């Protein structure tokens, strides 16, 4: 066994200082600058991955795209599977506009269709139908204008045909946008394969909604569980605080290193809740449920806990190296966030949670002595 001096002997409150400083710094990174970067999943937009044939200067490609009107960010990687480029482009105005028009159109179409059916039976509904139909035509014509199609909606009498025409115009807007982007890229880089991941505004809203729900439910469930297991306010609170600080540190690192918040990095954050609770629980169990000198117990728990955290760090470090070799974003986002969180866990558990518990036990001992 390797022997290390017990860091909890002496003024252990000082141990919380590095953690507190980093938490404050993290809060600064998260809320003030540079802030957390939203990935394409949550922000909407396009993520284009290229397998390049030869080296491209990312800055000049980015400038070229900016000149064409795309607010793109370009990264080039030299990976074990060849040269790769990643280009991120925020959602185009036309796309957002077309999406809104489609939502309106879908609603109006339903109303118009039922009015059409009723007025076929009862002529007194015809005027009402005509008004709705005019509204529908207006929406459709707006989209046709964006798509660059010369159709006039009012000329298309049959609603089924109108719907078809509208849908193909809608997908034309998307396709046109994708083609112009890829054409522009083609001018400045030669590549062997291209994959375009495009997330519509609707879809990104959907992802945000689901993510928020998942976080809330996971937080509530784990809080309830922790309180159930310990049935003691201060230690339970300390455990939850430890996990919370850990997440803040991980988010801080995401902001500082500009690791985007995407579905995979979101999954890693959830994993961190469980992972950081692990060491917090180990510490609390050892401190509360066993006899002996609190400082010794804390130190003992730390030895076990740090070994645990380091095995996790090794696994995610391997994943991180893999992600750099292959440029697989899923690997990179999960491993980078998990690594940040695991280092954060070292500080949060042994600098904050342990300190609170030690203080709590000392105070309890004092109370017992005074009362006794």
């Amino acid at each position, binding site marked *: 066994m*390797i022997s290390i001096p017990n860091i909890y002997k002496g003024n252990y409150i000082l141990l919380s200082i590095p953690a507190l400083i980093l938490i404050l710094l993290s809060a600064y990174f998260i809320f003030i600058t540079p802030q957390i970067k939203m990935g394409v*999943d949550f922000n909407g937009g396009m993520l284009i991955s290229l397998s390049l044939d030869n080296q491209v200067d990312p800055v000049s490609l980015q400038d070229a795209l900016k000149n064409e009107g795309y607010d793109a960010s370009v990264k080039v990687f030299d990976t*074990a*599977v060849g040269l790769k480029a990643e280009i991120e482009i925020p959602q185009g105005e036309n796309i957002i506009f077309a999406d809104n028009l489609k939502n309106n159109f*879908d609603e109006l*179409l339903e109303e*118009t269709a*039922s*009015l*059409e*059916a009723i007025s*076929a039976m009862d002529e007194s509904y015809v005027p009402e139908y005509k008004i709705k139909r005019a509204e529908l035509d207006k929406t459709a014509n707006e989209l046709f204008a964006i798509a660059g199609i010369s159709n006039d909606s009012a000329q298309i009498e*049959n*609603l*089924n045909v109108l*719907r*078809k025409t509208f849908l193909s115009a809608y*997908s034309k807007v998307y396709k046109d946008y994708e083609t112009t982007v890829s054409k522009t890229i083609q001018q400045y880089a030669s590549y062997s*394969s291209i*994959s375009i*991941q495009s997330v519509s505004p*609707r*879809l990104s809203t959907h992802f945000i909604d*689901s993510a928020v729900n998942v976080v809330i439910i*996971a937080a509530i*469930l*784990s809080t309830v*569980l*922790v309180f159930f297991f310990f049935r003691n306010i201060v230690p339970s609170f300390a455990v939850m605080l430890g996990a919370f600080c850990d997440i803040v540190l991980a988010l801080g690192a995401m902001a500082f290193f500009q690791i985007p918040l995407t579905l*995979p990095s*979101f*999954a890693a954050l*959830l994993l961190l*809740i*469980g*992972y950081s*609770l*692990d060491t917090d*629980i*180990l510490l609390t*169990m050892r401190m509360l449920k*066993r006899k002996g000198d609190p400082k010794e117990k804390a130190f*003992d728990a730390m*030895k*076990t806990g740090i070994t*645990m955290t380091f*095995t996790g760090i*090794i*696994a995610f470090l*391997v*994943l991180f*190296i*893999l992600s750099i070799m*292959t440029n*697989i974003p*899923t*690997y990179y986002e*999960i*491993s980078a966030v*998990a690594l940040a969180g695991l280092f954060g866990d070292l500080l949060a558990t042994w600098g904050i949670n342990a300190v609170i518990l030690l203080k709590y036990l000392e105070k309890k001992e004092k109370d017992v002595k005074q009362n006794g």
Partner: protein
Amino acid sequence: MDNWKKTITSKKGIILLVTFLLFVLSIYFYGRYAGIFLMFSLLVFGALSFFWKEREIKILTLVCMVVLAVINIGINPMKFGIDFSGGTRIPVILEHPVDSATMEELVDTIKKRASVLGLSEVKVSAIGDSEINIEVPSDNQEQILFIEEVLSKQGVYEGIVDGKVAIIGEDILPGSVQPLAAQYLSGSADWGVSFSITSKSAKYFSEVVYGKANYPLYMFLDRPKNAIIILSYDELSITAQKEHSIDDLVDACNDALKHENNDLKLYLLEEIDINSSLVPYDNKTKALISEDSPDWLVNYLSENGFIITFINKEAISPSFTQGATLPSIIEWDGVGLLSAPRLSKSITEGSISTYYSISGPAQGEGAQKTKDAQENVKRITSVLKGGALPVKITLGSKTVLPPQLGMEFLRLSLIGIAASLLIISIMIGIRYMKKKLIIPVVIISISELIILISILGSFTIDLAAMAGIIAAIGVGVDAQIVITDEILKKQSIELQEKLENAFKIIKINVIVAIVAMLPLLFSGMVEIIGFSISTILGALLGYLLSRPAYAAIVRDIAEH
């Protein structure tokens, strides 16, 4: 050694062996459900390991599980997501969450339309209550565009009477299709759907159906054009009545396949003369054949220049009416024939109407009958609306991956797994400076890994699941560290108590870790669900099997 002999020949040992053999047989004969069987066996062996205190049993249960996992990897091919095998993934987002029945219907509709269009290798799966995943093992741009088109557009509806197109989808007013109220149902009808058609088409319809009382109106959705279909005698007669001859059945089929300007020709497998050649109409003519067709047929057709389209077993056979003197077809999914109501006399006498209804009897009694009636209404409504899905959908972010790249990813990921195992073992070695400890840690970790890969591979290993597997190696060792530290403590308490202390901590850890990931599992976020599954499985596996086994092994070491 004596202990081992005693355990293996004991009642418990025999029960364990029998259970193990049963699971081996299950995964051998029901390979499709191997993943489910493995998960179930994990629970069974976990329970045995929990209730039976002998340490030999605890180790044996783990051994059984590992051997089972290895057998599964050997006989059932592991499935990899398109990230590793190459292909295209299109997530479909529903406008609002739906109940499981609607979800089933949606997945079914998409599958049906995909298979009629010859895309039977497309994988359609429901994720949660608001998302559907479509995976195509191909990065063929044309095919992908085709699928996107199929999904985002309505199907093409054709109503055919006696070989003439009487009505097409565009003629039906989309807002007018609705269930018929009970008081308007006549005669033996239990359900009905009414709809209106445009006045232009009304005149044409009345001309086509004139004098055709009691003819079937064959309702097609996406009827294949420029195609032939080949059936074996068995496929043809699967739903037919015994007394009907093959010739009668063929006549019934031809009646349904008749079309004024593009007949779908039916050939019988047994009557194909391999020495003469079957000539396609042009270089785009499709041959619709069963996915079970013999190889010679496939070769013969492609040599003759047909484009081959495989149709599901269930869809290739026509469904015939029951109890009639002459057979007639009511449904034939393989060619897109979804219903064949009969024309009532009143509409075939020349009067022009824009309002029609389709009605029919329902099968079964009581609640069953009501349900069947509702299903008929749903089906007909969907057909009349051009196969429109019951919920609006949005196509999600499409991912395309070339197969060579996927293989490379897989290779590197496997190296990654090996590397992290190796480094963690070295670290444990340095931390404890005891060789005897490293070996069990490594063995247990490898066992966990094998079981995890075998279970996940029975479903699908995608990028997120692979990341979860690598993470599970790091997390899996944690509990072993807790146990080791407790056992090595220089406290004067009993070993049993030390182990109980360790298990208390591990239990809470595992529960909390699982609970934190559970909401993600049910969130319906397809992209990362694999990660939560592998993390949860990893935790569960460790808690139920590997940790007790590890404690049993290490206890031996600590005592000696």
